């Protein structure tokens, strides 16, 4: 792999950009791999990269039914933060945030991680109490999160309407300064390139259709549109389709899949300096480097794999955006899309072993797993290599729905992502 650097850019500029090589190879599948990862999103590709880099396991294939980043990795609104409430969540999201900070250097790929600050608006006394509880919990955990008065919030984000007469008045906000955004496609591409460089096979346009098991019940490989491919271990990391793939191994999951939508505006000059979220009125917004406002809407109420969603969900969030930021009322929206998210009953992810030997699962990241990508991928690689969860992911087991040790982040976060 030829390193990306300012010199590489200068060299290519001199010779008409003819020397750039393909970022990853597209090999034909081998007969068998030590590890097959189902799903070429950020989590799956990242896990393959860390398997090779940190565990020396390179006979690995990532199998993706479409193109890299065509799933939720390329559909999300890229909000990154770690100020969750419960230890189990803080452990993994903070681990992830630390990896984000050095990810571009580690991968030699600019993932454009931008710690521009994530602000959460408080609209009433209940919000305020809940958010301050978060702040205290976060600080005990060494995670930055601070309280802002409405005036401080306005100073940090000038477009915000803090008038007492506003439709949704604000009595303060929290700010995680290390939170922010990153370039979603670059995350998939950067991991794919770095994994491929270490010998991992990235196999696109290949759908997993079945999971084959040996006489002792353990996995032996996958049936795909390119035929049978053997595997000693299989990890499933297919976001909205995790239930479908786990069913191939006769495992029923505590998941339901729903569309989640996002939309972007026409590009504008830089106007919006940070990420703002409001749980109470459901709005979240940031501005991309291209200048588009990036807005996240909610999930539909019913199970669906349609990668689309109801228009009323979009208008609901736009109503809130127009009230919070009156200057955006005349902005035109350019594109809207949906992605299928896999949601658990307690809205926390599942990463761990399954009842099937050598079958691992990474799922339930639902509406908020982009921020977890490096951390989740890193710990998933550990799980696959060692056969048991890493300390930082130890609470995210599948069997918590039997034991009752739920991680009730649903009540704590209250909003998508």
């Amino acid at each position, binding site marked *: 792999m030829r390193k990306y650097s300012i010199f590489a850019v200068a060299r290519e500029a001199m010779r008409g950009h003819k020397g750039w090589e393909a970022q990853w190879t597209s090999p034909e599948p081998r007969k068998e791999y030590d590890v097959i990862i189902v799903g070429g999103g950020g989590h799956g590709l990242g896990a393959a990269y860390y398997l090779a880099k940190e565990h020396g396991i390179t006979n690995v294939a990532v199998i993706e039914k479409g193109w890299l980043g065509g799933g939720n990795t390329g559909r999300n609104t890229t909000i990154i933060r770690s100020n969750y409430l419960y230890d189990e969540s803080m452990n993994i999201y903070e681990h992830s945030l630390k990896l984000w900070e050095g990810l571009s250097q580690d991968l030699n790929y600019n993932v454009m991680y931008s710690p521009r600050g994530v602000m959460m608006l408080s609209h009433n006394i209940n919000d305020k109490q809940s958010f301050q509880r978060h702040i205290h919990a976060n600080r005990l955990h060494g995670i930055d999160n601070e309280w802002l008065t409405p005036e401080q919030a306005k100073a940090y984000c000038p477009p915000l309407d803090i008038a007492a007469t506003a439709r949704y008045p604000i009595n303060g906000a929290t700010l995680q300064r290390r939170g922010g955004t990153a370039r979603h496609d670059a995350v998939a591409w950067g991991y794919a390139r770095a994994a491929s460089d270490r010998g991992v096979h990235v196999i696109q346009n290949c759908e997993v259709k079945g999971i084959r098991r040996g006489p002792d019940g353990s996995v032996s490989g996958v049936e795909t549109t390119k035929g049978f491919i053997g595997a000693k271990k299989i990890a499933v990391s297919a976001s909205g*389709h995790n*239930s*479908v793939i786990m*069913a191939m191994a006769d495992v*029923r*999951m*505590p*998941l*339901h*899949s729903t569309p989640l939508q996002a939309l972007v505006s026409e590009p504008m000059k830089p106007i919006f300096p940070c990420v703002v979220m409001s749980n109470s009125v459901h709005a979240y917004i940031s501005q991309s480097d291209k200048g588009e406002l990036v807005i996240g809407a909610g999930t539909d*109420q*019913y*199970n*669906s*794999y*349609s990668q*689309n969603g*109801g*228009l*009323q969900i979009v208008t609901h969030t736009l109503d809130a955006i127009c009230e919070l930021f009156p200057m955006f009322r005349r902005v035109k929206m350019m594109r809207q899309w949906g992605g299928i998210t*896999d949601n658990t*009953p307690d809205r926390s992810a599942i990463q761990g072993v399954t009842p099937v030997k050598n079958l691992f699962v990474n799922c339930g990241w639902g509406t908020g797993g982009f921020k977890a990508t490096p951390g989740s991928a890193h710990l998933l690689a550990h799980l696959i290599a060692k056969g048991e969860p890493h300390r930082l992911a130890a609470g995210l087991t599948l069997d918590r*729905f*039997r*034991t*009752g040790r739920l991680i009730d982040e649903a009540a704590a976060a209250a909003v998508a992502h």
Partner: protein
Amino acid sequence: MLLIYCPYCEEDRSELEFRHGGDAHIVRPTNMADISDEEFEEFFFLRDNPKGVIYERWRHIHGCGRFFNAARDTVSDRFLASYKTGEPKPALSGASPASAQLAEPPAQIDETTEGTAK
């Protein structure tokens, strides 16, 4: 936005009038204190989450207020049938229009067809 047929009001109404009620045909155990953790997990948390036909509950919350069941294709979001609570899963004709009725009217209310959880 979905257009949903309420079998009680006998009308297609906008999704805004309805609240989704999760999977249909799941029977709440009557001996809740006696069942094992595995049985509770099965009843309460585990779901098929099918890519294809799902049987689900809806409540016409801003209409008649009643719960009913529907069969819907989760890929196209097309409704295949809407039927009253307590009626068995309908035989699906597949090619029915959005507001399709049952392929055949249910013969009678049959509690024994309501799910397999104990």
